[in-house]
């Protein structure tokens, strides 16, 4: 487990993480609004409530480190450094998007920032990330790869086969499970009798840790340690981040009765953004300084929207490009 961090707060870092988390939050709220207004095609799975995981983990990464994400990946892309406008343009199906509008929310790629893609197939990114780890290991430059996945992927064969290979080959991969308790409407406790994801690491002889996924510093520290080991060619770690999504599985998903209002409210009490804000205030930073940050984020999102909105649709001729 990781050392508690509630006490010792590093202003500078926490302020950066607070701002990043706020960007992720504001971004998804904007996507929700645009989607509900029928501006965005396709399907979107929002990251609202889980910001501390992406931000806490990616804060430890170099630009040339790689991450492989999921169907719920906007936050991962932003945390890895992909510009908001580029992500939003992709959700909009515009040429300025990271995939020129051909990918959308679930097939978004930005290798320039080490973002190796969201993914429409649950489980699939775990072997892919493990392969990225193989390349990183062979390159011998101390690079690492992060594999993000939800607890729903843990019961899939992809998880099982990939974690075993990652361990056997001592690959520099950090397996980050975002355990938000549900896969669509399916409670993890209905899907398995062993609801401890961290404990699954033992099956492969891998290190496994569980951490409060709503505490950005706790996530940061757990990831920092795992990444330090991986960079030193010490092999992979499985990190279970206990988190929660405030919104529906995907926008427009009617399903709500599978969890109680109380449960949702309880988790909102532990909101990672509010929590970081409070920690900053408690540690003496002035309200006004935070207000300025909030303001910057507002400007940032408006610019992202302008950027995406002003981009054009793909050209018809391009439909047959890049197949091979």
């Amino acid at each position: 487990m990781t050392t508690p961090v509630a006490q010792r707060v590093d202003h500078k870092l926490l302020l950066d993480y607070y701002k990043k988390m706020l960007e992720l939050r504001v971004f998804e709220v904007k996507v929700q609004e645009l989607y509900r207004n029928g501006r965005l095609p396709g399907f979107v799975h929002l990251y609202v409530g889980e910001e501390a995981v992406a931000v806490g983990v990616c804060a430890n990464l170099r630009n040339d480190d790689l991450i492989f994400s999921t169907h719920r990946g906007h936050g991962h892309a932003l945390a890895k450094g992909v510009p908001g406008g580029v992500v939003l343009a992709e959700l909009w199906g515009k040429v300025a998007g990271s995939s020129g509008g051909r990918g959308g929310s679930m097939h978004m790629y930005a290798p320039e920032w080490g973002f190796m893609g969201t993914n429409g197939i649950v489980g699939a990114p775990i072997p892919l990330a493990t392969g990225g780890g193989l390349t990183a290991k062979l390159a011998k430059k101390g690079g690492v790869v992060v594999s993000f996945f939800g607890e729903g992927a843990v019961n899939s064969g992809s998880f099982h086969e990939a974690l075993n290979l990652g361990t056997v080959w001592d690959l520099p991969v950090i397996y980050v499970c975002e355990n938000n308790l549900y896969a669509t409407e399916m409670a993890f406790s209905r899907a398995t009798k062993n609801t401890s994801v961290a404990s699954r690491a033992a099956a492969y002889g891998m290190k496994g840790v569980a951490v409060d996924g709503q505490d950005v510093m706790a996530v940061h520290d757990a990831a920092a340690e795992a990444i330090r080991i991986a960079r030193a060619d010490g092999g992979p770690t499985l990190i279970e981040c206990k988190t929660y999504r405030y919104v529906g599985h995907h926008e427009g998903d009617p399903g709500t009765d599978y969890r109680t209002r109380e449960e949702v409210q309880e988790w909102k009490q532990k909101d990672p953004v509010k929590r970081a804000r409070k920690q900053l205030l408690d540690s003496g930073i002035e309200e006004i300084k935070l207000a300025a940050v909030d303001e910057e984020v507002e400007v940032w999102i408006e610019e992202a929207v302008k950027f995406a909105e002003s981009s054009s649709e793909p050209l018809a001729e391009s439909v047959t490009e890049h197949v091979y």
Partner: protein
Amino acid sequence: MSEQGRVITYSDAGVEALREEMRRDSSIVYIGQGIGPRGGNFRQTKGLWKEFGDHRLRDTGICELGATGVAIGAAMAGTRTIVDEVFLDFALEALTQIIQQAANISYMSNGKIKAPVLVRGAMGAVRNAGAHHSHTFYNWFANTPGLKVVLPATPYDLKGLFKSSLREPGPVIFIEHKSLYNTKGVVPEEEYIIPLGEARIVREGKDVTIVAMSRMVDLAVKAAAALESEGVSAEVIDPRTIVPLDRQRITDSIKKTGRLVVIDESPSSCSFAAELLAIAVEDCFHELDVVPKRICSMPVPNPFSPVLENLMIPSVERIVGEIHGMMKDVRRKS
């Protein structure tokens, strides 16, 4: 018959078929993701869990491989099972079980073991879901001995074909189309079944035969209507099942019209459209008046961009345009 009855949705027609069959055959067990209390991602099991409960509607985690293998094994042991992959795309996770175990078991066991399992999945493009959620695959299953392959295009066909599929001795691949779930059609009150292997003449005509399945049938009908106003009489045929295939009814039509157009949502290489052109030349060599046409999705992954995906998938305009060209061709016999 399909004239009387109520107007209900494609998804509700499936729910009705399931309810009736699960009442008739108490051995039927339904396995899948979100098919219990949630009532199905596409509302394809709405209300069934209330009536049949946890034992017969079994939600699983994300494990298509295991769940499909379990459904096949249970079927081999005597339980009639349905395994719902929800998106047909996810059947890829379990293809080894479907192809190696379910399809082969009757033959390999000399008919001593049957696997009455229905593999359900929704195919095709819907609301720009993108490359991972838009596959078709039916021609792969049709290339696999031991599997029957069913693709209903209307609520009426869906209910009748679903019920007969649930009375088959062996495995059936039952493929719905995602973008048809909310379409409506007339479905009779009284019980009926549609035997597998009977093509449906959707629309009679004499100048050209259009063969289409699933969502493509609707496009074919719209194209036929447009052509009619120009004096071109198109016959539209929906095979409804690829295995078994109603080769007779299809080739009779081709022989009558002398012209064949196949609309296929999958890429053309080694497709069902290719199969139909092969059948046409094998059985109607002397009756074909002009070069038959395949109108398929472009050979690219489904792009997310609405602009691009609309270009990629067959459209009414494209069909009408192709048939215009075809009608200009001098008839060989004349």
